[in-house]
């Protein structure tokens, strides 16, 4: 699965921002602790101040192993 790679600064810029009305970006860390956002967030972005997400580098997603404990 393809996701979009963020720098720490870019991640901070997206926290608390809506990419469409009533849906906020949710940057998460992958297995390698890279900050990423999903293709759904990038594709639905229409806010002209954040169109830069469409130019983010794409990487293959490797999830962290979820841990309930």
């Amino acid at each position, binding site marked *: 699965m393809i996701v979009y790679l963020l720098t720490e600064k870019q991640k901070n810029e997206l926290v608390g921002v809506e990419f*469409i009305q009533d849906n906020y970006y949710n940057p998460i860390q992958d297995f390698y602790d890279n900050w990423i956002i999903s293709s759904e967030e990038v594709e639905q972005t229409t806010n002209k101040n954040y169109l830069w997400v469409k130019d983010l580098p794409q990487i293959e997603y490797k999830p962290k192993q979820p841990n309930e404990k």
Partner: protein
Amino acid sequence: MFANRRKTILFSNNNKPKNLFDVDALAFINLAGITSSAEKTAIDNLYKNLKGVGAQNTVHDFYTNLTAFYPFAGGKASSFIYNGKNPSASNPYNLTFAGGVTYSTNGAKFNGTNGFADTFIPQNAMQRNLNGFSVYFIENNARSETQFGHLSRPSFIKTNIGYTALKQWNGADKFSGGVVGTTIYTNINGLTRVNRSTSPNYRVYKNGIQTELVTAASEANTDTTTFTIGSIRLGDTNGTTFYCDKTICYAEISNGHSLSAAQELIYYNCIQQYQTEQGRQV
């Protein structure tokens, strides 16, 4: 004279009442910006059924006992956010979506990577021995995920509907493995409802039929973090994990109230009619 005019407006020529919208259904339709006549009818019938004045339910007032329910109608986030109970823009349990979610008339499709919705319903508000909650989704693919839930750590008090591969179930409110409890389900889609009606019984219903009875004492919980749909909330970090990849069509939580076995089936029939009228039933 004025009263008679009003009567003329409300009643048709053959003296039968016109098919008026339920007042709360109409409030929801207006708030969520629903324009499709099919969706309007489905929503109106949902409210009437939940209130005990519909085709599926003429007896039970489920509506009063709901804390929050999410009809997921209207095909967009700005329609899906609203709590159907006492619908208003300022309802404290209106949803906020985050991460990868796409929207259609089928419901909210979570991406299984980082998408979820916050209900703003805190875990510590839940009554320990009298509550219930449910979720309806379309896909039938089992994977390690949560569709609706909360997990307090390190106490590990878990209240969720979902499938995890951990198969841990160590006591009160700790549901995992299969969908809940210890059963591994072949068919996981449709309506799953967990209910706590009497201590120590947790009952699991799949499409209105009880499939599990799990016994456990409940535990006091002071965790103020909130339930999420499409993932599980982690109380210690306020983060989320075990994201689901399902299209969710309905979710509900009833705090301080439960349903009998007979009511569970009627409740399912109400929800199933709602999904069928929108062509998204399982």
